[in-house]
């Protein structure tokens, strides 16, 4: 098996919400890489990714909650934890 740096990743259904999430994560996680595919957006980072739900709502200019975020979360890599106000992925 190839030796790799442990990473975490989010794969989001392309759309306005995914664009907002990608923009917010790129700003809050300088080591994250965002890739735009025709139907989905991939955000990868070493170690950890934290989606702060209030920041996404602010970027969208509307109410936002964890349930709505989970609607566009197609897949992920890492260990996931869902809280009231955030969704956190860790590599460990």
């Amino acid at each position: 098996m190839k030796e790799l740096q442990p990473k975490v990743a989010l794969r989001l259904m392309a759309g306005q919400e995914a664009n907002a999430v990608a923009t917010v994560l790129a700003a809050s996680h300088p080591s994250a890489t965002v890739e735009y595919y025709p139907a989905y957006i991939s955000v990868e980072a070493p170690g950890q990714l934290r989606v702060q739900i209030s920041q996404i709502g602010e970027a969208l200019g509307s109410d936002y909650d964890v349930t709505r975020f989970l609607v566009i979360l197609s897949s992920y890599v890492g260990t996931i934890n869902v809280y009231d106000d955030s969704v956190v992925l860790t590599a460990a």
Partner: protein
Amino acid sequence: MAVLAKSYDRVKAMDWEPSYITPEEKFTEPTRFHLGKKAIDPFRTFVREYFQMEREKDSRHFAMLEAASRFQSSSPEPRWMEAMKFMLSNMAAVEYGAGRQMGRMARVVAPTELRQGYMMQALDEMRHTQLEMSALRHHMRTWEDPAGYDIALYGGHTNLGSGAFRSFLEDSLTCDPVESSIAIQIFGETADTNLMFVGMTTSATLGGDPVVASTLLTIQSDESRHMANGYATLMTLLNDDRNIPLVQDALDKWSWRMHMGFEVPEMLAADYFVKHKTESGKEMYQRWILEDFYGNFYRKLEKYGIKQPRFMDQIVRNIDWASHSAAVYLFGAWPEFYHRYDAPDEREMEWFEKKYPGWYSHFGKFWESYKRCDDPASGSFILKELGRLPGFCQVCQFPWIFPRPDASAGRRVLKNGKWVGFCSSACEWIYNREPDHYRGFKGFYDWCDGWEFSDVVRDLGYIRPDGKTLVAQPTLDMKRMWTVDDLKACDYIVRSPMHDEPVITGDRGDELVSQDLL
């Protein structure tokens, strides 16, 4: 932050042991794994939020489907639209089987959190079957050739390739109920679905089929929770040292089982269902399965004493050629399916050679013959050109042509006086582990050995409403289509290679081995 976790703990505490029934009566199917009472659901999903979320997903997706039925995009790619007849129909059958699986696990696996996750997953899988059926119906109504889409649900259970899907799915439905979680949630959903349900949405969009792109992504958004179900189950198991060898054994079996049953068909789809080629099936495999799954997810299990899967080397060897060998199977036996398919053109052949150096020397001849046999007036039938048919594996139901038809790992083994066929030493190991589990599988030759080929297609019923034209065609050109009479004129008789005298290539004392393959 604490509110959700606290409420979730409170709801969990409402579980109780019934007094009117013994644990043995309650958990009808025993498991050999040791499961404690405590587990974790990292999604902390309540039923109320679950339905809110699923309703939102459905209203977004069905709004898209509704709009798509009014606004046809510019013409979709015919290769892709025909391949979806095969892909969506088989997927609908697999998802339904997974739903049955979850109901069974919710019944017999003890910890509350896991049961709740499985129950929601059972509903998800029914939703997925319906989403795929909706896409099939949409395509039946809008695509230029509805034949095949109209029989998709019947076809998903009867086509020659469906045996491979049913084989792994029914195995996962009848094995130890905790082992099923490793099969479906760890390999199926944490590793495999990503390649197709996320990776291949690019091909769907480029092929002008946003309906399938949206279908795949909204399905995969449920898989996010299913991965967490699998992870929660696995972590609960790994916290008890007695489970480590049992988990290793199940990982050894299912990494190979899902490789053949699911990953090989996915690579085939990525390489052959797509006209506007970008990433190859092998590249997608490396990215989604070797890197994301084995490199990130599986490697984390090492700290619990889990080793790499027993057949990992064979898996890695297989990915160079398996998609092309599977294509020889799918398109070589084309009348036993219900889609039209044209041979790769010059540009595609160059792409294959670039992505898989040596491709032409191994598979070029097959595709040249396939192309020559496209006109029924020629009287040539591709299977006749190929010569002898391969046998089928008693376990995975694939023919003995892997990793490559001219370098097959297949064999016949004389077990208790009866020859049994295997695609590989991996499937033979799986058979030996539980022979009774696989001995009774019926395959292609049990059904139609000795039949003339047009009778096989008549028996399947893959014939258009005119009563004579075949649903499947070896070309996308609809001007001169093959009929059952054209096929009959080729006079091709199905003959199992098991009738041929074995050439003994190995003697294990109590078992003889024959590798006289093609």
